[in-house]
C-alpha cells in the first residue's frame, strides 16, 4: 500500500453516496437534454431515391461498374486486384492484406442483379446472353458508345433517353438496371452477392454502400457540408454536437504534410497511433512528464490544501 497518504489528515467521506447522487443528477441532466433536443436523424439515402432523382448519374455509375472503369472497379485492394490507393515506401498494408472483401463490379453490381429479375422480366436473360456471348471487343464498343451517348442523354419521365446508336444489348441492360434501382429491390440484389450473406439473412451492406458511394453519397455530403475537407466527420448534418473528440484526427487531414499527401490516411493513422503511444508512455518521458510542474495548474487545483493545511504545518 502506498504509504504516502498516511501523512495526510483525513476527513469523512462516502464514496457510494457520492456516486449515487452524481448518477441521479447525471441521469436527470441527460434526460432533460434528450427531451428538449432529441437526437440527430436524417433518413438514409436509398438506391431507389438516387435512381428516381438522378437517373442519368445512376446509369453513369452503372456503366462505370459494367466497364470496370468506375471508382470501385479500379479501387484495388481490398476489393480487387490493382495498385494500392496508398503506400509509404515499403509500407503498403493494402497489398499485404490482399483482397480481403473482393468485389467484381461488372458481375456483382450489374449482371447478377439483372439475372435476379428474370422471373419478372424474362427477356433480360436474352440480352445478358447476347452480351456475354459477344467478343470482349464488341462488348467494349457497345459500352463505349452507350457511355458517350449518356453525356447527351435527356431525361423523359424519369427515364434516360439517348440518341440512336449501336449499343447492342447494353442500353436495354442498363435501363433495366435503372428500373430495378427505382423499384427499391436493388439494394437487396446487391447484398445477395456479398460473401457471408445468404438468400434470407443480410448483415453485410458492403455492396449497396459501395454502389451509392461515388456519385450519390458524395452529392448528398456536398449538399450537407459533410465532406472530409469540411470536417464532415465531427459535425452532423443538423445543429447537433458531433463526435468532437475526433477533432484532432480530423484536423490533421487539413494541414501539411498530411493535406497534400497521396498517403494521407496512412500518415494520419500513424500520427494518431504515435500520439496515443506518447500518452501511454507519458509518465516515463522526460520533459513531457515535467509539464505539470512547468505549468502549475496544480496550485489552483489544490489551492485550499496549500492555503490551509500547509500554513498550519
Amino acid at each position, binding site marked *: 500500500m502506498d504509504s504516502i497518504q498516511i501523512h495526510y489528515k483525513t476527513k469523512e467521506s462516502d464514496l457510494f453516496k457520492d456516486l449515487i447522487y452524481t448518477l441521479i443528477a447525471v441521469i436527470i441532466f441527460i434526460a432533460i437534454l434528450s*427531451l428538449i433536443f432529441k437526437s440527430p436523424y436524417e433518413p438514409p439515402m436509398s438506391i431507389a431515391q438516387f435512381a428516381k432523382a438522378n437517373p442519368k448519374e445512376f446509369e453513369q455509375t452503372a456503366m462505370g461498374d459494367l466497364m470496370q472503369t468506375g471508382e470501385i472497379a479500379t479501387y484495388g485492394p481490398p476489393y480487387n486486384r490493382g495498385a494500392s490507393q496508398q503506400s509509404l515506401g515499403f509500407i503498403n498494408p493494402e497489398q499485404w492484406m490482399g483482397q480481403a472483401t473482393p468485389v467484381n463490379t461488372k458481375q456483382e453490381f450489374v449482371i447478377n442483379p439483372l439475372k435476379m429479375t428474370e422471373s419478372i422480366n424474362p427477356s433480360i436473360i436474352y440480352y445478358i446472353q447476347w452480351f456475354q456471348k459477344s467478343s470482349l471487343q464488341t462488348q467494349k464498343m457497345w459500352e463505349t458508345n452507350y457511355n458517350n451517348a449518356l453525356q447527351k442523354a435527356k431525361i423523359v419521365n424519369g427515364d434516360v433517353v439517348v440518341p440512336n446508336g449501336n449499343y447492342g444489348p447494353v442500353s436495354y441492360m442498363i435501363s433495366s438496371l435503372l428500373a430495378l434501382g427505382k423499384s427499391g429491390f436493388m439494394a437487396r440484389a446487391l447484398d445477395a452477392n456479398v460473401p457471408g450473406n445468404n438468400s434470407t439473412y443480410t448483415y453485410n451492406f458492403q455492396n449497396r454502400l459501395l454502389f451509392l458511394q461515388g456519385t450519390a453519397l458524395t452529392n448528398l455530403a456536398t449538399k450537407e457540408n459533410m465532406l472530409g475537407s469540411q470536417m464532415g466527420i465531427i459535425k452532423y448534418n443538423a445543429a447537433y454536437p458531433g463526435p468532437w473528440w475526433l477533432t484532432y484526427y480530423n484536423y490533421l487531414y487539413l494541414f501539411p504534410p498530411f493535406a497534400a499527401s497521396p498517403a494521407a490516411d496512412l500518415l494520419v493513422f500513424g500520427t494518431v497511433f504515435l500520439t496515443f503511444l506518447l500518452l501511454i508512455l*507519458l509518465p516515463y518521458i522526460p520533459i513531457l512528464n515535467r509539464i505539470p510542474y512547468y505549468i502549475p495548474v496544480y496550485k489552483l487545483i*489544490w489551492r485550499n490544501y496549500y492555503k490551509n493545511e500547509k500554513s498550519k504545518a
Partner: protein
Amino acid sequence: MNITKAIRDKIKKEVDIDEILPDKLPVYVSSFVYMFGIITLASLIVVILSGFIMVSKGVLWYQTSSLGFFFRSMHFWGVQVFFFFLTLHFLTIFFMAGWRGGRAITWIIGIFIAMFAIIETFMGILLQGGSFAQWNQVQAKDAFNAVGITSFLNLLNNGQLEGLHFVVFPSILVLLVGIHIFLVRQKGLVPPIEDNKNG
C-alpha cells in the same frame, strides 16, 4: 502449485477492503476537479443502461417508437457528457501529474479506456441508421482500407459492427474501467505536488 491458493494469497496481499472502500479521504481532496472522474463514470452507466434497453428492443426500435427515440437520445447525450467529462478528467489528472507514486499503470489504463471509447463510439455513429452513418461508413472505409484494418473490421459490414459495438467493446471497456477504479482505490488518490520534493 495450487492455483486457487495462489489467487487467494494474491488477493489477500493486494486487496485491503478498508483501503479500497474507505469512509475517510485525505483533506487535499477538496476541489470540484475530483468530480470529473465520477461524472464520467456516471455518464458511462447511463450510456450502458440506455444501450441495454435499445438492443433489447432491436436495432431500429427508435424508428417506430417515441420511447425508443428517447432512449436513443439518452444514448447520444450520454456519450456527449461522457467525453466532455472524460476530457476534463484527463486534463486535470495530467496537470496533477497523477501518475506519481506508482500510479503509472492507472494512467496507462485510463488512456486505453479513452482509445477503446473512441473506437466504440465511432462504431456507434456508423450504426445510427441515417445518412450521417451511411456517409461516414463509405468515407472512413478508405482510411481503414489504407491501413489494412478492413481484413479484420469491415466498416460496411453492419453485422460485424453490431457484434463489436454491442458486446465486445463494451465488455472490454467495463473491464478496463473496473481495473482503473480498483487501482485508484488501491493506490489512493494522488497527493498534492509538494514544492520541496518535485517528483
